[in-house]
């Protein structure tokens, strides 16, 4: 269930007594453990008492801003004192390990080929990863090292840091050199949960359509030398 909402609660099943008509269920208590029939409950301050919500009996967190798993039992007592523990019940509130799973977008771009000299602006776009819980939202995306845990990027600056988060489009610092940039993207979600993407690469190679020219001092196109000297030859310009 989402966090931060008073509507987040656990709807209990309907409990009945074998003699429900004459000796109906009359008490619903929350316990952190199953203490066995006729034994008192272990109180849970983090959960409310069983409360009526329309036709249902519900339990909700006393602080609904927490991202947390609540595991509890109910002790149900009928008129006359018959009682039993039920559970365990798990109430997941918010975003935390166990309540949500993240995955790379199916369109995640694992290899972006570029040419040396290509424009650098907004070259890599990451389709946003997905979450199994709609209330777990992306807070930021960061380029990180290509290692198992996605440590903070330690190489030379290759991709320009985003101006504002959450962002999913990056520019390159330059496309001057032939190189392959390996990186991962660490996405931080609600409650500081993180998802590490698969490895992405940006491969920069040379195209075959660059203009070639001479540079520097261009030697005379006509050069004259003596014969019989193995050291002489035509001095080519610098290309």
């Amino acid at each position, binding site marked *: 269930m989402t966090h931060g909402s008073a509507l987040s609660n656990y709807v209990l099943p309907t409990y009945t007594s074998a003699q429900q008509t004459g000796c109906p269920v009359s008490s619903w208590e929350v316990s952190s453990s199953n203490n066995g029939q006729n034994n008192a409950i272990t109180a849970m301050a983090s959960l409310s008492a069983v409360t009526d919500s329309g036709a249902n009996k519900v339990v909700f967190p006393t602080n609904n801003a927490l991202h947390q798993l609540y595991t509890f039992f109910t002790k149900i007592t009928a008129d006359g004192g018959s009682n039993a523990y039920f559970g365990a019940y798990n109430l997941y509130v918010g975003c935390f390990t166990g309540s949500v799973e993240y995955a790379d977008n199916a369109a995640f771009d694992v290899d972006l080929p570029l*040419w*040396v*000299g290509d424009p650098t602006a907004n070259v890599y776009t990451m389709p946003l990863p997905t979450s199994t819980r709609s209330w777990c939202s992306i807070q930021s995306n960061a380029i990180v090292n290509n290692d198992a845990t996605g440590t903070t990027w330690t190489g030379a600056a290759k991709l320009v840091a985003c101006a504002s988060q959450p962002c999913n489009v990056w520019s390159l610092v330059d*496309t*001057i*050199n*032939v190189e392959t940039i390996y990186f991962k993207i660490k996405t931080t979600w609600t409650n500081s949960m993180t998802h590490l993407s698969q490895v992405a690469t940006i491969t*920069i*190679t*040379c*195209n*075959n*359509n*660059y*203009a*070639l020219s*001479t540079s520097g001092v261009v030697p005379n*196109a*006509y*050069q*004259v*030398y*003596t*014969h*019989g*000297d*193995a*050291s*002489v*030859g*035509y*001095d*080519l*310009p610098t*290309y």
Partner: protein
Amino acid sequence: MGCPITTREVSASDNGENNAITAVSALQAPTLVSSTWKVKPSNNALHYKYTFYVKVTALGGSNKYFGPYELDIGCTTTSVVYTDAASGFVTNVPVYVGDSVVNKYTFAQPTSSRAWCVIVSNVIVNNDATGTAWSGSSQVASTQGCAS
């Protein structure tokens, strides 16, 4: 920086971008000598003028022909100019009948615009446009009087 020049090839003609060169057996492939790329003749003993192009290719395949370039080796009609001696060239020797005949005419050596183009011989020839072999009086002969 990222896509440097990787190959330089000598071609007899400019065959156009992306087209193969026309090999020139009389010239070697360019070699790097003291940070300068040179094209040397295969036989440096020849007096010859070579005209060629260079196909330059960069990493990735970009390429272009440059030239034509002209390499004049030795003494060729296009590489050297010869001139009569600036002073001392004798155009007229007055001789009296009965004078001694020995060493009557001294030829001031002509000059060359290339130091490596040296005089091998001098011969007397006809006074015509092309200097045909001497065919006149035996008073002078083509090599008469020369030391060698």
